[in-house]
């Protein structure tokens, strides 16, 4: 299980569209060995098919696909966009924080989601995710959450 480890984080990345933002977050999963390259395609396909329902909170998107779409290991990646982009959500646009979920069929998947839910349900953490100067600052937020 890989939860927001440094190679899974990209800060102030540039994306011109929701699809580009999803692909950036998917590429992090692939580069870290947590998902095959086709997983990013599957997340984009899901977005096209089912719409932006995964924009779960103001400025936060959690794109994901199915475990069988190429997940190698349960993982979460994070892309902070330099400029927020519109996903087409009725209440929560534009999106700046993109957390791609690579879910597995195992219990790790639930552990991962629980950790992410706790992290993002704290408004102070959200502000820290937006303001963090570097990857180390992000790691500190995560370590604080685990304690």
């Amino acid at each position: 299980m890989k939860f927001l480890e440094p190679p899974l984080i990209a800060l102030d990345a540039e994306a011109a569209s929701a699809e580009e933002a999803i692909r950036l977050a998917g590429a992090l999963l692939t580069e870290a060995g947590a998902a095959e390259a086709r997983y990013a395609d599957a997340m984009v396909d899901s977005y096209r098919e089912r719409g932006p329902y995964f924009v779960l909170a103001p400025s936060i998107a959690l794109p994901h696909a199915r475990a069988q779409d190429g997940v190698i290991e349960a993982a979460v990646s994070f892309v902070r966009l330099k400029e927020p982009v519109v996903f087409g959500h009725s209440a929560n646009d534009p999106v700046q924080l993109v957390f791609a979920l690579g879910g597995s069929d195992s219990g790790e998947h639930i552990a991962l989601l629980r950790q992410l839910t706790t992290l993002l349900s704290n408004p102070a953490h959200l502000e820290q995710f937006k303001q963090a100067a570097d990857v180390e600052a992000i790691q500190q937020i995560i370590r604080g959450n685990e304690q």
Partner: protein
Amino acid sequence: MKVLCVCGLGQGTSLILRMNVENVLSAMGVSADVEHTDVSTASGTAADYIITSHELAQSLEGHSARIIVVNNYFDNDEIKQKLGEAL
């Protein structure tokens, strides 16, 4: 009382919603059977309440359950308020 938390695939975001809904219901002292599922399974599943996003609520129109729309899945105050109004 049966509550379904619904997302597009039934694997990721509906489970996140379920975690916070369970937390909120338990804080409210309400006992309920909370499950998470995808939107097409939900269409054929009996429930008292369905909690989902605005985007997916439209595809569940006509379901016998009362549909509760949550905009911010990480805002337990919003979830609590919406549940409080509906229950």
